[in-house]
């Protein structure tokens, strides 16, 4: 059975985002790109499924400039079988991404799409449910546990939701999005990295897919949030309580 793992490359989370002088864009020149951490968890989960069921094929797909091959190869080195890179130098928002992914799904025979619950740059949390809706598939977002039955008919998914953990059963094909505690992604092994260089990676120009998508969101301006000023250090519990009572008046 085939699993599709969409992944997005994002700027390294350890690096603070920087705006262009005119505040019209976030500077990405020279940033270090990584696989979106939630998508990395999705790759890991797919690899774990394959380890239990060797007849699984894992296809990773990304959308972006040709240099995104680096992040795609990371997923191959972790254990994915082959990769598709839909190439574009333009902006890719959730709307365009889910349309492209729907087209890729239509060209294959996938029982499961598993991807991150959100990308840590745009923080929109839309692509998974958008894709599920476009395909008219069921979905289970924010997964912290995933079990697929023997016949790939259904998946039982534990979801991290407000107030606790919810378990749902969805029929496959379906879309699952990953939360932090689904697994801990492995580091690619050296043999994996060597092998990944030879694994199939198909590049498809975005224009050749014939997808019409005009941006639905126009960003007028970026800004930094107001900075908090560092306050004062207190030297004792007594002083802290006094400040909270008399200055901040929160006690």
């Amino acid at each position, binding site marked *: 059975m085939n699993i599709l793992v969409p992944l997005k490359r994002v*700027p390294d989370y350890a690096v603070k985002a920087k*705006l262009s002088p005119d505040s019209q864009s976030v500077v990405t020149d020279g940033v270090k790109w990584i696989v979106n951490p939630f998508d990395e968890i999705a790759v890991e989960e797919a690899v774990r499924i394959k380890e239990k069921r060797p007849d699984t094929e894992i296809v990773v797909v990304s959308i972006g400039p040709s240099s995104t091959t680096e992040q795609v190869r990371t997923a191959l080195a972790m254990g994915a079988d082959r990769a598709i890179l839909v190439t574009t130098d333009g902006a890719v928002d959730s709307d365009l991404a889910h349309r492209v992914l729907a087209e890729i799904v239509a060209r294959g025979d996938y029982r499961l799409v598993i991807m991150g619950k959100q990308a840590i740059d745009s923080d929109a949390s839309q692509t998974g449910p958008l894709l599920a809706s476009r395909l008219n598939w069921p979905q289970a977002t924010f997964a912290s546990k995933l079990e697929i039955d023997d016949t790939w008919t259904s998946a039982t998914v534990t979801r991290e939701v407000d107030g606790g953990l919810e*378990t749902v059963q969805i029929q496959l094909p*379906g879309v699952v999005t990953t939360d932090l505690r689904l697994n801990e992604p492995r580091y690619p092994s050296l043999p994996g990295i060597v092998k990944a260089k030879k694994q199939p990676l198909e590049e498809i120009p975005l224009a050749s897919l014939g997808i019409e998508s005009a*941006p639905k*969101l126009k960003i007028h301006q970026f800004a930094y949030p107001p900075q908090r000023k560092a306050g*004062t*250090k207190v030297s004792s519990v007594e002083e802290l*309580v006094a400040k909270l009572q008399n200055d901040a008046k929160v006690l």
Partner: protein
Amino acid sequence: MGSVALYIENNGEKLPKSSLSALAAALEIKQAHGHEKVIGVLIGGTGTSAAANEAAQYGLDEVLYVQSSALEQYLALQYAETLKLAVDAVQPAVIVAASTSRGKDFLPRIAQLFDAGQASDCTAILPGGKYRRPMYAGNVLADVEITTAVQVVTIRPSAFGAASKAGTCAVRELAVHVLEEPRMKFVRFDQVKNERPELGEAEIVVSGGRALKSAETFQQHILPLADALGAAVGASRAAVDSGYAPNDWQVGQTGKVVAPKLYIAVGISGAIQHLAGMKDSKTIVAINKDSEAPIFEVADYGLVADLFEVVPQLTEAVKKARGQ
């Protein structure tokens, strides 16, 4: 300029605080962007009619609800289909909801069904039809305009105060045929037992980090302080990953975003993704052994000390100050 359809999440008969924040945001959108009215929409099982009557007391123009035994449990497919049908009756220009775990889960499906652009997790309504939303773990704010005929907007509950009661409006039940949907089934809900205030609703939050060292010591130190303050309990991702606290307590970019009057961070270093979840708190206290910890850069009051020593002292001092 058309109307605003507001999805109001209900918990049986109850409206969570996040719904009251969404109500306030929807009324603000109506005023700031010149819409004619706000129509509240509730969908669910038992208790939804009572919740609809409650929602009708906050200055909306009309409240519609769908109550069906098929909607007893929240499931994305069923709720998206039902909300689509209910909202069709309104023909709105804007569809608004709170970005709770449910709103995050199924509002994108609504956006897809209406071919609408969605602005997620908005923290402010701006003039000129724009919205402000955080990106990059809150390190960047974007002012966005949604250019589609129908707009979908989810709002961050902690960024909007709760709506207050104002004139009562009409409540109408919608007879929507809820389709049988065998492809998604509810199995169970394991609720985090919590006698304390809800994290997203509390005026004071006490959070613990990895420095608490174990689930046992987390409970021994954080919970008594929280209880002395009448506070909700939060945790850093590191503390949750290490199993010291349940996932529902995580504060951060990918957990809950809170903005209480007082936030006390205990043994939390202050990673970017944690700061994203609490830096809009009014007063921040940090207790950490490491004087270089980034949490001190956002704290109003910092105490460099061994938490195992000072947290019990602080608990006692708070009890004394509050006459407990």
